[in-house]
């Protein structure tokens, strides 16, 4: 919320994407889980926002809500706003939102093998967009698909368009997925853990490719990950999520230098480091909260080494500590000015 203050000033150009106070519930017969509890972040054209957090923190659900591909039921957006270039998406018709998908915003997924349809060729699945969104002929669309594969540096693209996803290697599949998402030249790309399922060497190649394409096209990118190592190289800004909220937001450099939330601290300490070989890997104790029953007060308090009575009672707000630096912790000021 606070992160979006500047844009509400009026005369300024609207942000590429703005998520504000987004609430999503997952309703099942047994219980209602509060998956998102007031998420807010924004992305501008040409920048990369990394969204960090453990599994279940709501990173992907936020992204799916933005795309409008949240499975409903069980997921329901109950409150909040999603604005694309100032247009309120939650009030838009389903047809309008479908128009935006692919054309204006696109998404790539973690596991390209299951995200691609196994019974159609890679070329068919890319060409589909040219055929049904651009009205191209089958043949022209296939040629365009080959061009797209070429763009993501798949060798021998003209032949490979005719192959099926299972005939591609993991890295090539993710490249094909990227080619597919960029087919209609979107200006916002959401990458949902694009490298998690890949080998380390391939991970770097894919990240480089994504970063290069983003720069060339001036796209805004949301990079969802739980891998801080991946983030460090490409992110301009970072939003850390916990239990369906953004708990810290900052430019990448300052966050790495000095986290302003104990949860971010924990995440950073859990990165293996060569210079600490042999020592036990620090990890955040405990488990992420049950979203059907989020603890009162700060949701992180049961796992926090700083927790006090105040933390158990009062939910800390996301406040701006320094220009562009936000944290939702009662001890944020202490953390940021320590050492």
């Amino acid at each position: 919320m606070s992160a979006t203050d500047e844009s509400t000033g009026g005369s300024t150009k609207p942000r590429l994407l703005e998520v504000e106070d987004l609430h999503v519930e997952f309703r099942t017969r047994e219980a209602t889980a509060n998956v998102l509890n007031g998420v807010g972040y924004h992305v501008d054209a040409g920048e990369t926002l990394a969204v960090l957090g453990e599994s279940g923190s709501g990173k992907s659900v936020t992204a799916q809500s933005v795309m409008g591909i949240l499975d409903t039921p069980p997921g329901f957006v109950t409150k909040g706003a999603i604005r694309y270039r100032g247009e309120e998406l939650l009030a838009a018709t389903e047809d309008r939102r479908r128009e935006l998908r692919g054309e204006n915003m696109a998404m790539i997924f973690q596991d390209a093998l299951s995200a691609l349809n196994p019974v159609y060729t890679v070329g068919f699945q890319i060409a589909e967009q040219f055929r049904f969104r651009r009205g191209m002929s089958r043949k022209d669309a296939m040629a365009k698909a080959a061009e797209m594969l070429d763009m993501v540096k798949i060798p021998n693209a003209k032949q490979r368009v005719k192959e099926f996803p299972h005939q591609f290697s993991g890295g090539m599949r993710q490249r094909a997925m990227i080619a597919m998402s960029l087919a209609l030249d979107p200006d916002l790309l959401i990458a949902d853990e694009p490298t998690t399922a890949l080998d380390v060497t391939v991970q770097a190649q894919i990240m480089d490719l994504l970063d290069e394409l983003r720069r060339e096209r001036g796209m805004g990118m949301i990079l969802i990950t739980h891998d801080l190592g991946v983030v460090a190289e490409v992110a301009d800004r970072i939003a850390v999520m916990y239990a369906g909220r953004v708990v810290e937001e900052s430019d990448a450099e300052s966050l790495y230098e000095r986290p302003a939330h104990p949860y971010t601290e924990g995440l950073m300490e859990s990165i293996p480091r060569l210079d600490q070989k042999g020592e036990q890997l620090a990890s955040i104790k405990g488990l992420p909260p049950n979203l059907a029953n989020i603890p009162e007060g700060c949701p992180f308090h049961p796992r926090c080494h700083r927790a006090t009575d105040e933390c158990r009672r009062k939910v800390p707000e996301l406040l701006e500590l320094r220009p562009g630096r936000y944290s939702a912790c009662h001890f944020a000021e202490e953390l940021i000015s320590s050492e």
Partner: protein
Amino acid sequence: MGRYILRRLLQLIPVFIGTTFIIYSLVWALPGDPFAGKCGSRACPEAYVQMMTEKYNLDEPLPVQYVLYLGQLFQGNFGETFSGLEVSTLIQNAYPVTIKLAAIALVFEAVIGIAAGILTALRGNGFVDNLVLAATLFLIAVPVFVSGFVVQIVFGVQLGWMNPSVSTDPTIGELVVPGLILGSLSMAYIARLTRTAMFENKRADYIRTANAKGLKPRRVVSVHMLRNSLIPVITFIGTDFGALMGGAIVTEGIFNIPGIGNLVFQAIGGQEGTTVTGVVTLLVIVYLLMNLLVDILYAALDPRIRYD
């Protein structure tokens, strides 16, 4: 793929020999004298029995009989019945009827079954879903000889909407009701199979991808969801068609349809070994070829399956 098909065709040879031998032995192993009661109320004359015994090599040991029979079969000679009719003529008369009946049953079960499956899967857990589930459960629970007789009595005898049994050379129109009865069980299975497969694929990652691409819902369902969901269904339909082509003894019996099932049934009753073996051999081959066709179709539908 070519080599695979060739290998499969070669596999037909041992299966062919095995099944024909088993059937041949079983038919002649049936207790009782095949010539008892062949000549009205009197016993058959000695000369007749001797002639028939010679003609069908009944004096020889079973393996020799079988080899002699097989030799005839390879020359395209299906042999004669005891009353002197060519078995091949009987098959020629009966098979078109069975094919018509099978085709009606197949179209019915495929069209209605798949449509019902898709409809329930898309509508979710509502009234339609419950209705289809209950109706299909009913069809699965009631055996064909019950539903067949009930339909025959209610619509054929009491209401008189149709003839209780078909004519000697039945038209498509006459075979519609028997075809529906014959296809009803498989129709229920197909509806349930389609429904489950659609439900599974509805939440698949590639469906989410298709949505993320901004494709119209109709295309997402009919192209991305359906193709994947139909793979198990097509397999079932193919195997079922193979079974249907083998004739339907019960359905054909109820409506007095002169199809292949009836032919086999009557031949078994009359201990017509030549007829039974000839017909069943043909059915086995048809069934095996249908299965091969299903396997080829399966590979065409799912590119991940390759037989090389």
